[in-house]
């Protein structure tokens, strides 16, 4: 059964048609690569799912119920988590503090509640263990490698019962070894039964980790097929427009 279902979604800004009549469905425990050139409408589509924009037309459904989002916070409440391209990490804080940023655990009664450092370190450590990442909860993020930073940003999505994780170019600016690390993180997320939408320009990454690929061009969905039935050459053709539609 699909976790998220978009039906005939469109978004226009004035006269500009950013996303045009897109329908798609995303299954639990599936990694979907979302590809397309700059300006193809990927970001706009993702921002609608994340609650930054409201669709001009069409409907979104989550677990069979209509999904209407006014603010990004509401998306999070529905189990939609985003890993931003710049990761949105605070370098001056520890890994655990970053994981819990905005949802700090506290103990105590009524207004006399203090931060529960022990619980946050413990839980963050457990999440890093699930992700199989050598990241220490007490370390400052500024001392971390690109892969560890990704692990911190991804760990954030696992705090609540996330159903869908949207990842915006997670492998764009890191070393080759760290790319492998991040792809592993994505697999561990999928193994938890979470649906992952991977927005990427990097063909090898998508073909390495994704189960399905969706290609967008000029606001339209031009392909939606399993990785096994596609090829990098075909996807390149679809992105550039050499292949019209499949």
């Amino acid at each position: 059964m699909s976790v998220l279902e978009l039906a005939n979604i469109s978004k226009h800004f004035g006269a500009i048609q950013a996303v045009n009549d897109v329908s798609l469905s995303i299954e639990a425990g599936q990694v979907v690569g979302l590809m397309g050139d700059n300006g193809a409408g990927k970001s706009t589509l993702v921002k609608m799912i994340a609650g930054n924009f409201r669709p001009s037309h069409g409907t979104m459904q989550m677990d069979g119920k209509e999904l209407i989002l006014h603010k990004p916070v509401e998306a999070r409440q529905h189990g939609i988590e985003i890993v931003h391209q710049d990761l949105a990490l605070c370098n001056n804080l520890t890994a655990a503090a970053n994981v819990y940023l905005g949802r700090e655990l506290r103990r105590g009664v009524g207004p006399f509640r203090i931060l529960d450092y022990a619980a946050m370190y413990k839980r963050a450590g457990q999440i890093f263990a699930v992700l199989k990442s050598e990241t220490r909860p007490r370390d400052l993020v500024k001392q971390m490698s690109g892969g560890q930073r990704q692990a911190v940003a991804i760990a954030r999505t696992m705090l609540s019962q996330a159903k869908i994780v949207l990842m915006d170019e997670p492998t764009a600016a890191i070393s080759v070894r760290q790319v492998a690390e991040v792809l592993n993180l994505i697999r561990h997320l999928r193994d938890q039964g979470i649906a992952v939408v991977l927005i990427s320009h990097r063909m090898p990454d998508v073909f390495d980790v994704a189960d399905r690929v969706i290609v967008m061009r000029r606001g339209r969905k031009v392909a939606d097929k399993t990785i096994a039935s596609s090829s990098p050459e075909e996807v390149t053709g679809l992105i550039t427009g050499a292949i019209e539609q499949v």
Partner: protein
Amino acid sequence: MAVTLDQTIAQKQHTLLTRVFASQTFWVVIAVILACLFLSVATDSFATTKNLYNITRNVTFVAIVALGMTFVIITGGIDLSVGSVLCLCSMVLAVTMHAGYGIEIGIAAAIATALIIGAFNGILIAYLGFPPFVVTLGMLSIARSLAMVASNNTVVFQFGPDHDKLLALGGGAFVFGIANPVLYTIVLALITGFVLRWTKFGRHIFAIGGNEHAATLTGVPVRQIKVAVYMISALAAGIAGIIQTGWLGAVTTNLGNGMELQVIAATVIGGANLAGGMGTAFGAVVGAALIEVIRNSLGLLGINAFWQGVFIGGAILLAVLFDRLRNFRRNE
């Protein structure tokens, strides 16, 4: 022996000791202690009860304002208006009490003034996107001018029916002969330290200073917190103004003139980073103490007072130099 993933994750990279040695505040404390030891030996007049009483009391006004400033600086902002706000709050207190109102009304009026100014600064900065430097620079001018208007630029030294209460509040020593301002500083420093380390509010302040955009994206109420920190800074200046009024027994319109620079110097010496994301309550107090010890010692050692600026400026650069050296080592 193979190291498992769980062991790696559970490992602590820093022990308490390495963390202490790595902190700028620790070295400033050492500097203060060494300076005090040296002065005790080198002069007869340093380690006297009277001199120590003076030093501790003088530290307090800068220290209290520096505690408030620490909140602002951690968020990556700056508050240049504290000296003028201190003066305005003193003046509001003085004029209210001079007009025959009790001390409670006077203090309430002074605190309200501080909070209104802080909220004004904060709203312009957080909601209208003004640069903190510009807003508080403007307020530096406005608040001092208002203080002049309130008093018609005269010296106020009669505080109505509660005159003696006010003087006891600022100049007395309620407990064990420790000057009252010192007690207030200790209490306020403990509160500040607690808020920064143990509350969600404190955590969010550091997050805003570290990466404001990230804080916004993760749902931290950035704007409200920014307004709050400027209100806290103004409130600290107001409290210092009230205490200083009681201690001096008179208010002039040049009270707290140039104080903002001393306060910023104290926080920076104590380890706060003007780029945001770093700072402690203890550091602010220790920084203020170092400045006061330098000032005091120059007088006792018979060095011309004109050299004061050189030594204080040197201390600022030296404190930041330690920080830079550590960073160089880390980057290599």
